Structures are given as structure tokens and as C-alpha cells.
């Protein structure tokens, strides 16, 4: 009557199809939802599947996507950053102001803006960790402060609420190669931000799944006391996450600035929730500890395709938000269904 430990195949486990095991990832639902939306707009509109059309929605998705991936990492780590949207404005405005008004070298300006962004991110992390206040509320305060400063300082220094004459700054075209250029591919006009997006998603996935810091991100988001007890450097992990998000804000700020060659004081306000939506649609839990970078990228793709698809479909634009809401609900429902079917938990 002794127990047969490890006696070959375990009779207590149903056999799972190998494919099923493969698809048991958090992002599988988002992938199916993205495919569904892609098919829908491909069939129902003409311009969606043309090379020009594809590059439009890819570009739209890429800007949301870069931030969404960073925000997803942060959310997996159990925190929010509501100042992420305003940060894209802040960094753009800094570069704009110091180059057009004070004639600073554009490369220096870039570094300066990055430094400011990273310090703000570090500041967020510091306040959150030292006070124990929820990051939702701390970064909301940061958001308000950034929003106010963006407006008031820009106005104070430039006399108006937008940066003018950015295109005439010397060195602008050099920098544009990295942030605002595009190259032809298969008939499409691919913006450089799409490359950034894909590269960052790949990097984030690698970090999350195959490195120690990635392991720690899941841990601090899942159970912070337990993580601390087994020796995870909680403070450093969260500091890194907030700074990553701020850094992504800088990147998107630059991509926007060098694309439209102007930036306004209100840039980025209200965008922070779109990033969170993308991350959640991509399978991140709001409570932390679960999610994926690829999922967030897919969430951004869904959002970008929907946003531009609605324009291609030429629906009455007053309904825009209603369509967006419906699509969002559909996407998360498909996501849920697929994940239930394939046995992914949470």
C-alpha cells in the first residue's frame, strides 16, 4: 500500500494537446482579439489593407505601444503611473523651449529632457516607496503638477502655449533620422517609431521572462511582503520600473516632437489611461503580478487599428467614442473567452 511516486505518466493529470500548452500564455486572448479586429476592418473598409493604410495604423499603434509596454511592466510590478501621458508633453516641451528659446544644442537638449524625465520617475518611486501611499494617487499628483508646469512655464518662457519654429532649429534633421524618419518597406512608408516599438517589446519580453529583474517584477507585483522576505530588492525594482516608464515617456515625447515638429502645452494629457487600457486588454492584471509585454503591444495594436479603422470606415465621427467603447468591450470579452478555453488562469 505504498504510494507509487513518479510512476511514469501521472494518472491525475489529463493529457493536454501540445498546441494547447503553447497557447497558454497571457497574450493569447489579445492575439485572437487583434486578429478579429484586423479581419473585420480589412473586409469592411478599402483603405485599411493598402500599404498606406497599414502604415497609418501601425504608426498609431506604435506610439501607444511603446508606452503601453512600459506601463505594462510597471503594472505587473504592482504600480500605476498616471503621469506617463503628461511626461511625453514635458519632455517635448523641454527640448522645444531650450532649443528654440535658449539656443541650446539639440543633442544636449535631448539628454537634458531625458535626465529630467528619469528624475521625475525616480521621484515618483521614492515618494511611493517611502510613504507607502498608493502610486495611483502619487502619480496623479505628479500628473497634475506636470500638466500645470507644462502650461505655465511654456507660456512664461515662450509667450504662447505651443512651441513654434522647431523645424528651423539647427540639427533638427539629424535628430529626425532617429525619431521622425520613415523608410519604405513592401510599398509601405514605415515610420521609425514602429521599429522602436518592436525592439522595445522584444527587449521587455526578454527581461520579463528570462532575467532576474523580470522574475522580481512579477514577484513584487504579486506579493510584496513575500518578495521582501525572500530577499528581492523591492525598492530597486520599483525604482527601475518607474524610471523605465518615465524613459518611455521621453522616447514617445521625442517621437512625437520630431514627427509633427511642434508640441503643445496640453500634449499627452488624458493619454495615460489609454496606456493602461492597452495593457489590460493585453492581459495584465490591474492588481499586479500577471501580464506580458507582448500582450500590451497587442493591446496597443488593437487600439490603434480600432482608432484608425473607424476613420477608414467613415462612420459618423460623433459616435467615435461609442464605437471605441464597444470595441474595447468586445476585445476584452474575446480575450477572456480565449483564455478560458485555453485554460489560462487569472
Amino acid at each position, binding site marked *: 500500500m505504498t504510494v507509487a511516486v*513518479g510512476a511514469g505518466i501521472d494518472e491525475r493529470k489529463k493529457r493536454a494537446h501540445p498546441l494547447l500548452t503553447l497557447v497558454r500564455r497571457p497574450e493569447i486572448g489579445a492575439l485572437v482579439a487583434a486578429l478579429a479586429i484586423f479581419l473585420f476592418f480589412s473586409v469592411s473598409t478599402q483603405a485599411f489593407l493598402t500599404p498606406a493604410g497599414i502604415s497609418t495604423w501601425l504608426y498609431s499603434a506604435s506610439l501607444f505601444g511603446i508606452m503601453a509596454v512600459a506601463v505594462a511592466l510597471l503594472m505587473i510590478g504592482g504600480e500605476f503611473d498616471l503621469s506617463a501621458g503628461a511626461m511625453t508633453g514635458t519632455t517635448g516641451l523641454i527640448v522645444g523651449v531650450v532649443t528654440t528659446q535658449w539656443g541650446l544644442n539639440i543633442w544636449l537638449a535631448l539628454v537634458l529632457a531625458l535626465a529630467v524625465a528619469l528624475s521625475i520617475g525616480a521621484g515618483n518611486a521614492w515618494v511611493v516607496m517611502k510613504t507607502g501611499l498608493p502610486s495611483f494617487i502619487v502619480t496623479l499628483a505628479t500628473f497634475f503638477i506636470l500638466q500645470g508646469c507644462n502650461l505655465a512655464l511654456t507660456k512664461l518662457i515662450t509667450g504662447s502655449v505651443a512651441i513654434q519654429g522647431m523645424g528651423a532649429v539647427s540639427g533638427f534633421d539629424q535628430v529626425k533620422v532617429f525619431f521622425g524618419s520613415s523608410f519604405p518597406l513592401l510599398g509601405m512608408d514605415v515610420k521609425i517609431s514602429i521599429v522602436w516599438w518592436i525592439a522595445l517589446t522584444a527587449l521587455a519580453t526578454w527581461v520579463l521572462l528570462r*532575467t532576474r529583474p523580470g522574475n522580481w517584477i512579477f514577484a513584487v507585483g*504579486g506579493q510584496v511582503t513575500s518578495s521582501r522576505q*525572500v*530577499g528581492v530588492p523591492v525598492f530597486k525594482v520599483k525604482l527601475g520600473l518607474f524610471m523605465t516608464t518615465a524613459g518611455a515617456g521621453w522616447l514617445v515625447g521625442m517621437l512625437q516632437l520630431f514627427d509633427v515638429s511642434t508640441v503643445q502645452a496640453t500634449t499627452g494629457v488624458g493619454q495615460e489611461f489609454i496606456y493602461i487600457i492597452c495593457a489590460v486588454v493585453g492581459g495584465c492584471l490591474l492588481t499586479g*503580478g500577471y501580464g506580458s509585454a507582448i500582450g500590451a503591444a497587442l493591446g496597443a495594436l488593437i487600439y490603434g487599428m480600432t482608432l484608425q479603422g473607424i476613420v477608414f470606415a467613415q462612420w459618423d465621427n460623433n459616435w467615435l467614442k461609442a464605437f471605441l467603447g464597444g470595441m474595447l468591450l468586445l476585445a476584452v470579452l474575446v480575450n477572456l473567452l480565449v483564455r478560458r478555453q485555453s485554460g489560462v*488562469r487569472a
Partner: protein
Amino acid sequence: MTPGSIRPEPILPAAIRPEPLLEVQGVGKTYGSVRALAGVSASVGAGEVLCVLGDNGAGKSTFIKILSGTHQHSEGTLLAFGVERRFAHPREALDLGIAAVYQDLAVVPLMPVWRNFFLGSEVTRGRGPLRRLDVASMRATTKHELGRMGIDLRDVDRPIGTLSGGERQSVAIARAVYFGAKVVILDEPTSALGVKQAGVVLSYIARARDRGLGVVFITHNPHHAYPVGDRFLLLQRGTSMGDFAKSEITIEEMTALMAGGAELEALAHELERP
């Protein structure tokens, strides 16, 4: 420095007892307005098992949380390897080779079993930017270590939150034993375990002791404590009732001390059918 000379009431001559690895003198801890522990002194040396016994709420978990760096003591001193310490973070204790199993297990429910096993001490391979987790070896080690405890997991990739209570506890114990280099602290490690697994844990403790590790072991089961323990620290309502060597106490005395005397006999009668 010979800590034996400072200790207020040396129970054995300093020559016989090993040098303490961990030692506390008059430590206490207050949570807000709740005084959970006060004036407790004890020590554990290499190759020794210190059993901490006491009623519910006596302060046992609080005691070991101080030793493992989870909480800081509000009074008294803590000496680790002869040096006065005040752990700000469990990492500091871990780095000294002190590993713990907490009563609430300290696992991250949504993470796979193998990631939990190695959390904070991940195995990597490659170098520089290519340094990455050695997933295959970590999976194999996890499966093997759990197998040694008599736990045969179907799938070490399952989130640990879906394991049964005892399976989860086994993971936490296997981890502490695997990583505990000098001192292993166990808070009621056998509470949710089956008879066989509990036996395995006791034999682990004995083996760790024989390898020269210090072990701090909390349990409510005198039958678990007596066979492996060398010293017995009895706590009651946050204060120490004494620190006894095995030679000074019998299992019956100990059980009586833990339970509060004659009540047990009455109980045996009560359980009979009327």
C-alpha cells in the same frame, strides 16, 4: 568576544555549548499599541536545534521575524555571528546565510512553483547582457528537491497558489533547506503536512543539524519538538518562561508546560462517548 560571558544566566558552561550563530538579549517588539514580545533572551549555535514553544499568540512568529530580518526589534540586542546587528531587510539576513520558512510561507501565489522556489536567488547563465535565467536547471532542481520531500508535483509550472496547503508548505521548506547556508529558521513547518511529509521535515532538521547548521524550529507538537530539539525556549504571552536544555526537561514536563497543566487529562475523558 565570548558572548557566553555577557549572557545573564549561562545554562551550560561556555566551553560545552558551541559559539552562538544567532543570539538575542532581552529583545522585545511592539506593533502599534500591542506589545507582542518583551525581554526574551536565547541563542542558537552551530549544530544545535532551538525549539520555540508556546501558546497561540505567545509571540513565536514575532520572535523569528526578528531573527530573519522581517521585523526590527523595538528593544534589546540581536547578535549575528558575534556582531551586533539590526537587519533593515531580510536580504541582509539571507546574505549571512540565514534562511527562513514563514508561517504564511512567503510565496507569490500567481508565480509558477519553480520561480517561487528560486525567487531572490535565481540561477543564471551567460554573461553581460546575455546573462539569463537557467530555466531548465531551476525546473529540474525544484522537481527534484520536492520529490525528496515526498511531494510529487505534476507540473512545476503551475502557479503556486493552486497547490494544496501542504504542497505549498513543502515548497517553502525545501527552498529554505536548499538555500540555508548557516542558519535555518522554520515557523510551524509541519502544521499542514501529512504524517510522511512531517517525518521528512524532521529528518531534514536532524540532517541540517548534523551538517553543523543552526536550526530554529517552532511547533505546537511536542512529539515533533522533543526528538530533534537540543534547547527549548518557552514563550508565554510575549515573555520568556525559560530556555531549557534537553537534559533539564522531559517530554511530559514540556507538554504540560505548553498546555497549562492538568487540563489534558480531563480532556481525554471528555472525548469518550457519554
